[in-house]
């Protein structure tokens, strides 16, 4: 009796990420293209908390890999309350596929759904490297054809090699803001530092992409010369200066300032993308 009641209470307090995982696994396992589903990260390790992101690895049969990866954003948008288009994850280690970070709203809270789409043949290697837990396998999952496997991985590489756009960089900034918010809530100072740097770097990328997309200089090199020739560029540089002047380790008051600066920067360097993404940005800001 006591155990049953405790189980009932535990079920009532089940972290909402499991509801999202249920929906995602139900959705993905219905596809004949999907051979495996694997949970990795803190949920697989048993170290999750109520802020944890949901890390799913989707094994996709090699012949279907290009179509599946090209469809994953539309799929998540149709199945969840997706706030912004998925951001092509540049943080996840290279596992032979490509990953996307989706910010989704569920029950009034913002969650991060990380979907790593891997060719089926890579799943066991990824499992070994990440200590992930496979939660779904199709009985027919077998060895892929070598040429299909090469085509799938080549398709994944081509996605990762694509140049970021203003829209993808604005999305990256919102994803990073969500991550930093989580780090601050958990008191993870070093991770907050690392992600704040990445945030600043993405802001720099947004200025370059919007105003000097064809420059031969990389990253922070010659930024003043490249952007500083026009009033618009000078304004962007001033905003980047404002951003880099903030403390390297953000706190609860720094994060809103960081967001305010990059949204002003986006209005200058990527106005069309900002307009397109504005409803999702506003909704994210109300939840971060």
């Amino acid at each position: 009796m006591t155990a049953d009641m405790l189980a009932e209470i535990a079920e009532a307090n089940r972290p909402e990420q499991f509801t999202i995982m249920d929906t995602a696994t139900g959705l993905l396992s219905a596809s004949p293209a999907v051979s495996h589903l694997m949970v990795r990260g803190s949920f697989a390790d048993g170290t999750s908390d109520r802020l944890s992101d949901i890390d799913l690895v989707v094994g996709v049969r090699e012949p279907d890999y290009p179509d599946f990866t090209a469809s994953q954003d539309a799929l998540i948008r149709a199945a969840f309350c997706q706030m912004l288009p998925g951001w092509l994850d540049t943080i996840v280690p290279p596992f032979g596929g490509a990953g996307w970070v989706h910010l989704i709203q569920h029950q009034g809270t913002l969650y991060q759904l990380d979907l790593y789409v891997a060719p089926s043949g890579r799943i066991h290697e990824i499992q070994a490297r990440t200590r992930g837990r496979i939660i779904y396998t199709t009985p027919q999952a077998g060895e892929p054809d070598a040429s299909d496997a090469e085509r799938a991985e080549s398709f994944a590489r081509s996605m990762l090699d694509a140049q970021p756009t203003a829209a993808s960089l604005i999305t990256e900034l919102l994803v990073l803001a969500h991550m930093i918010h989580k780090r601050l809530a958990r008191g993870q100072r070093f991770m907050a530092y690392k992600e704040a740097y990445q945030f600043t770097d993405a802001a720099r990328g947004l200025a370059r992409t919007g105003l000097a997309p064809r420059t031969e200089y990389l990253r922070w090199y010659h930024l003043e010369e490249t952007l500083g020739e026009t009033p618009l560029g000078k304004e962007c540089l001033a905003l980047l200066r404002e951003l880099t002047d903030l403390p390297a380790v953000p706190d609860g008051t720094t994060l809103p300032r960081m967001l305010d600066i990059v949204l002003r920067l986006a209005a200058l360097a990527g106005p069309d993308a900002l307009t397109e993404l504005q409803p999702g940005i506003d909704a994210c800001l109300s939840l971060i």
Partner: protein
Amino acid sequence: MANQLLAPSIGSQVGCFGHPGLDPLIERVRHEALTVPTAYATGYGEYQSGGWDTLSLLNHSGDPRDVTIGDVDPVPTTLLREMPATAELIRTLGLQVWWARLALMKPGTFLWEHRDYTEPGVSGTERHRIHVPLVTSGSAFLITGGHAVHMGDGRIWRLNPVHVHGACNMAGPARLHLILDCHDSRELERLRSVEELPGEYIRALPEATPEELDRYVREAGRLTRLGFAQQAERHLLRVYFSHALPYAGWAYDMIADIYASQGDAESAAHWRARKTRTLGGA
């Protein structure tokens, strides 16, 4: 900017007016609407993505969970009896209301492209729908005539829902409106005489190019082939909310065509029939 600057067809479909003097009462209605109702009822499943729920305040039976509207001699529901400020607001507006309800639209919800007042017994005389926004979301829009209209709070909105329209709350928070279906009347005419459609609430959707339309159809076909038929349907139905489309019911036709091209005649027929049911003779 008043509605004379906009396409006349939009102005005849939707408009709004301020409610000077009613603010304190509406604030009490908001408090009631957020605190009194409990479980909302889901109706009109075919018209929506899920997430749009209502409770009736005036209907034929007095049961708030009877939510399929009809032109009736309305009686207050048990819910309205617990919401005196709301009853007072409905009385004060002085409209000939034949159905009243609270409508909750959760984040990520879509009321697909459709026409209203097609229910049995609801036809003939001129009717209008009044929306009183109680809680709104910056990503909640009414879509009609290739425009997105944000029904902002602080105003009362009129809609003529016999025209093709849809509604969405893309990213939340949850939107809560008091909705009154009413006959044309002298009081409504009086309100309409001061109606406007300020530019801050409306934006024209970009016209979808043939290439964009092809891309959406290709993406939906790909989703269907991958086993995600329902998501493919939604992918196409959602285009109505981001683009002005070449004609009413484009998404319904494209979904039917995809099923037909894949040899699924039954699903194709279902979507053609659904188009007729939800859009009528549009």
